[in-house]
């Protein structure tokens, strides 16, 4: 039986998270179909059709799907669900909103945030902020799964030539409406896809300091900017910068943490980075226990020095 993937996109382009989910789906060994639900999103359907290893693209174009309201999109997924053995989505705020609702409509659970696939019904996922790794076997009739992007390589975006088929759902469920969005605009790479991430914590002290100290280093390195929960709660940076158990999970080649103590909830989101650098004035800060290279010192001296010497 075929595997279905709910594509994350913005009506113009596929999100990288979708390519990682496709790579995970390929490990199940069945043909892979991709559902592109949105409005005026034919370009996205074409993009999905070009990904290596896709058997079919289902394209649902409807104003009701324009803003990916869970009530409308989950109903479409649930309508298509009986033809599939596995339904996957990225474990992003998009996937974690829609997929459990689709599962609920089918009286199934979700296997959330998987990091490995051991068989068609057996999956590996972190629990307790990544302090334990569980291997679970699902007995649900349809396996609904969300995929942690950092645990799977991205599928190749080109080389495929899948057929695109139009599909239709019920459209507007009449339960919800999109009011508006305030999206962070940035010229920097996207946090979860960046090769280098520079993160600041409470030690940075203010939003001004983020701009004057953290951002110049990020820009010198072509890096994304991240933050701890404490820095977000204090209003130094917007919520979408948060790295951690309940924020974003990142695994860049280089993660630089400045003025971050290293609470387990923060480590949960960055422990998978290839190289970790910690800059902290407290020699006993827990962040040093996971850092490859640590500098004990005042971030207001160390970070600008690093920026100017690079």
């Amino acid at each position, binding site marked *: 039986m075929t595997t279905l993937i709910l594509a994350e996109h913005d009506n113009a382009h596929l999100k990288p998270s979708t390519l990682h989910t496709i790579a995970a789906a390929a490990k199940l060994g069945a043909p892979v179909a991709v559902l592109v639900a949105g409005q005026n999103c034919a370009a996205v359907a074409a993009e999905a059709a070009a990904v290596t290893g896709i058997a079919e693209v289902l394209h649902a174009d409807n104003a009701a799907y324009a803003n990916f309201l*869970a009530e409308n999109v989950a109903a479409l997924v649930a309508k298509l669900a009986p033809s599939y053995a596995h339904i996957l989505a990225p474990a992003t705020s998009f996937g974690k*909103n829609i997929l459990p609702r689709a599962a609920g409509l089918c009286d199934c659970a979700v296997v959330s945030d998987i990091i490995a696939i051991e068989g068609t019904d057996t999956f590996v996922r972190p629990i307790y902020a990544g302090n334990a790794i569980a291997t679970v076997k699902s007995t649900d009739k349809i396996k609904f799964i969300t995929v942690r992007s950092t645990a799977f390589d991205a599928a190749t975006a080109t080389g495929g030539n899948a057929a695109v088929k139009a599909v239709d759902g019920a459209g507007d469920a009449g339960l919800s409406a999109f009011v508006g969005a305030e999206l962070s605009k940035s010229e920097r790479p996207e946090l979860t896809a960046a090769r280098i991430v520079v993160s600041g914590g409470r030690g940075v002290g203010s939003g001004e300091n983020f701009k004057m100290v953290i951002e110049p280093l990020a820009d010198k390195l072509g890096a994304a900017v991240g933050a701890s929960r404490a820095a977000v709660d204090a209003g130094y940076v917007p919520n979408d910068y948060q790295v951690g158990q*309940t924020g974003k999970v990142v695994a860049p080649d280089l993660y630089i943490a400045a003025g971050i103590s290293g609470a387990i909830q923060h480590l949960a989101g960055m422990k998978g980075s290839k190289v*970790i650098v910690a800059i902290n004035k407290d020699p006993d800060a827990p962040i040093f226990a996971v850092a490859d290279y640590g500098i004990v010192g005042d971030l207001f001296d160390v970070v600008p020095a690093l920026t100017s010497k690079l």
Partner: protein
Amino acid sequence: MKILVTVKRVIDYNVKIRIKADGSGVETQNVKMSMNPFDEIAVEEAVRLKEKGIASEVVAVTFGPTQAQETLRTAMAMGVDRAIYIAVEGEIQSLGVARALKKIIDKEQPGLVIMGKQAIDNDSSQTGPILAAMLGWPQGTFASKVDIAGDKAHVTREIDGGLETVALKLPAVVTTDLRLNEPRYASLPNIMKAKKKPLETMTLAELDVDVTPTLQVLKVEPPPVRKGGIKVPDVDTLIDKLKNEAKVI
């Protein structure tokens, strides 16, 4: 309007967990337990809506062993009016909880259900949307702001790209994110008062729902350990290491 909030007793977020030697799970005996932090935020939001005169009554529900009733008492000390305790020996998972909650909600008829976006034990982040689907209600997940006006809830949601606001037709399910509010501490007089608030006990048999887990845990292991590295004396050494040893810049 009546508000229903769900609370879960979990290992306190400050505790370093221990994995059982036989790999069957995480040790919860003799470990400090607390209310799931996202549920504290849910309770706080419901109580604030009552204080603003928008809600008339706040009811808290939990599932679990006998000690889970303590979590309901904490919720009542924070301002919840009454509680429903469903006794569960053994494991109950998100799907079973959602099925059971649906039965309770069919009877209680709340106008709003507020839940945590995830419990910090299993980190599954799914009970809210599964329940909303079963009820046929709209959902506002990862909420950082909730405004009730007439028969609608305007919910601002924390999403990967920033913030998004949706309008939901009530009744609805809302799940809380960290920035929704800062939960209060229960005062001693309120802790005393909470002891006298009504706590109703129910069994799964009375609810007549199947809560058999559909996710069988085969094993639980520690994560690969990340070895700490070295401290470098200065920025020049750091740059040298990053260029020539780690080769990441």
